[in-house]
């Protein structure tokens, strides 16, 4: 009753249902349309099995970090630290292997632990100090950039990266599927089950839906929010480690651009199948749209600047579709 922000336009019920269907399936139509158009324009390079595997492989790292961000936005917060954190994790994991000579598994465990710790810090700042999450994670992210430079002095760690670490991202497993795709599939499945099929997942959704009501229903709201940040932080660590393995080096700011990709994917996802609600499967489809888009632009040899324009435009379209879904759901 108090929402006086705008009047709903005069639409016939049929038109409203139609618009609702459009909003929910627009992203999937968009994905299919993009694949069809690229296939027609470039029949020998685009619609091949090896290119699709390549696209999925490209999408894996983006999907893992975007999957983590999805948990943060479901609990109603934003996490702007993930890109910088992933860069730090890449530098750190390489350094731990090359310079500290830790076993690869231990090094990865250390960065995953650090990712979780960053999540706890983000979560505590937001829940206990009541700092807006945009500001909190921007601040933490900037501190992370500093730590990253302090650790590596800004010099990429390239020499002496062992082959076994490179195999993590470059190796193939079952039926020759690249490892990152398999890891991504496990992460997506795990997150989906967590959010949609577990008791704690229901609490996660409740906290995002209405924190006051969740609190009075007995949900430990602060702990759930911190959990959202922890999962976001750990996914950023995994993406950072895989990226370092793929690049064969630990480079400051290598993963920074994943922040924007992840946000675009998450918002595109919220407009997919549900009315402006964030969910893991939606983020997966959102990521595919973005990565297929990049892939197409690459195949046609589009200049670098066009990729930025594509990414910025898709972010705006994504958020627009997401709020359109919500408006239609409420009217």
């Amino acid at each position: 009753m108090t929402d006086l922000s705008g009047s709903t336009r005069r639409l016939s019920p049929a038109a409203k249902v139609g618009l609702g269907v459009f909003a929910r399936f627009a992203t999937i139509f968009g994905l299919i349309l993009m694949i069809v158009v690229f296939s027609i324009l470039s029949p020998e390079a685009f619609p091949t099995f090896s290119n699709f595997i390549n696209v999925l492989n490209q999408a894996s790292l983006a999907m893992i970090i975007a999957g983590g961000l999805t948990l943060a936005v479901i609990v109603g917060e934003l996490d702007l630290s993930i890109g910088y954190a992933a860069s730090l994790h890449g530098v750190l994991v390489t350094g731990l292997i090359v310079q500290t000579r830790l076993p690869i598994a231990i090094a990865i465990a250390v960065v995953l632990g650090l990712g979780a710790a960053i999540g706890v810090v983000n979560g505590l700042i937001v829940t206990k100090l009541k700092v807006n999450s945009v500001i909190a994670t921007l601040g933490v992210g900037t501190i992370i950039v500093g730590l990253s430079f302090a650790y590596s002095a800004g010099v990429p760690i390239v020499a002496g990266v062992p082959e076994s670490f490179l195999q993590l991202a470059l190796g193939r497993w079952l039926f020759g599927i690249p490892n990152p795709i398999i890891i991504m599939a496990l992460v997506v499945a795990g997150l989906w089950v967590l959010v949609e099929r577990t008791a704690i997942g229901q609490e996660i959704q409740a906290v995002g839906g209405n924190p006051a009501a969740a609190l009075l229903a007995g949900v430990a709201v602060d702990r759930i929010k911190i959990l959202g940040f922890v999962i976001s932080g750990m996914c950023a660590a995994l993406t950072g480690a895989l990226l370092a393995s793929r690049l064969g080096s630990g480079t400051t700011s290598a993963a920074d651009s994943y922040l924007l990709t992840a946000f675009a994917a998450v918002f595109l996802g919220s407009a997919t199948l549900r009315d402006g609600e964030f969910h893991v499967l939606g983020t997966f489809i959102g990521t595919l749209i973005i990565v297929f888009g990049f892939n197409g632009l690459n195949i046609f040899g589009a200049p670098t600047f066009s990729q930025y324009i594509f990414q910025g435009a898709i972010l705006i379209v994504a958020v627009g579709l997401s709020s359109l879904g919500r408006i239609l759901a409420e009217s």
Partner: protein
Amino acid sequence: MSAFAHAGTPSASPFVSVKGLTKTFGGAQALKGVSLSVLPGEAHGLVGANGAGKSTFIRILAGLTQPDGGEILVDGRPLTSNDPHRANELGMSFIHQELAFVASMSVLENIMLGLPKRTRLGFVDWPTIARDVKPIADRVGVTAPLNAGVRGLSTAENWLINITRALVRKARLIVMDEPTAALSTAESVRLFDIIRDLRTSGVSVLYVSHRLDEILELCQRVTVFRDGQSVAELDGAQLTRQGLVEAIVGRSIEQAKKPASLSIGERVVLSARGLSRLPKVKDVAFDLRQGEVLGLGGLVGAGRSELARLLFGADRPDGGRMTLDGKPFAPRSCAEAVAARIGLVPEERRSEGLILSKSVAFNLALANLGALVIAQGLPLISPRRWRATTEKTMRDLMIKASGIDTPVGHLSGGNQQKVVIGRWLQAMPKVLILDEPTRGVDVGSRAEIHRLVRELASKGMAVLVISSEPEELPDLCDRVLIMAEGRIVAELSGEALTRDRVIAASYAEASGFA
């Protein structure tokens, strides 16, 4: 009278006349053709069960929602397009249940919000505006200075400011949605005086309320909505309590009777001694027994909701102690209280009780997720068990929704309240606290909620009911404690538990006769 510069002359032709209005949301038809007309200078009542279409009707009149069919005539001229701005221009003002102010602005700035303001040399001429507004505010009875901030003003004061705003806008019709829901009896009486005063200057009031006594006292004509249709327009001799109830329900209903309290056990479940959180709760002591429905009465602001927050772990007491089943009980959070099996149905169901965008099934399960898992110790939820539990609760409580996946925001107020109660029915806590369980709920749902509360108590649950309606406590409770200024000042039970005693105890102590 001179304060109302826009006094109109009463006449027989209606100011607003609505004919055959229809509206469908998704698959549900909220309005199936309602008609209503308001004469100048008339207090017109609008009543109906929750879900009868009153809110949708008001939203359409306010231009917030567009109708699918039907017509609205203002001064006999059809209104082809409507939005909140246009509705205002035509002289319609709306005061909603949940009042909206810009908290950082002053009383005067809020009154003038959205209105063209007199300027001098390009600057807003606040002194002159204040001089113009002051007589109107005085007439309405606003006691806060116009330059004071709106933060911390009482609900009653907020209503008066809103009425002033409507009059400054030269409103010819003021629509009031459940105006007395949050007002004390004295404040309500003051509001009625103001409404009568408005009428004499030609301003019409559309008065939407579940409180039939107020409607009878105040309104010349009453339109009754039922299931999206206007089923009756009563006036003169037809306008009786019995007639209204029958039109609302569509049949005659018996007055619900309180069953004999056979269920009260000897065992004290929850007890408090010397419980304090200054300045709102002072030295409170009580025992709540198994199977008992204990009422907590008193005026708004007596400290009842604050006491409930202490029991539920939302606040920490700064003195005294509590025991639950004989063991010390000091919850540090709501989650701990729920884990100790205490449930709360909060006062504000939309903002504190429900996650409106989520489904009925989701909202019902929220406090009982542990029972829905595939197997003990496994974190996975069984969709089959979830569906079965939801359907059972919806049947037991007669929750009306098109399916278990319907967003709870689409339900009517009474059904929403049943969902909040149903959540605790699933979890079966030892102690259930209900804060204003039937506020803004229609006659039928109210009786069902009362029956439900008695049923829970008969199963051994200890129930604490907070209510500001003096009629509700004797209807529902075995025993009633009256709070005033943070203390428990009276205990009523048996023969002594009557509406009049509840009212007398609330006022006597509040005015310092104790």
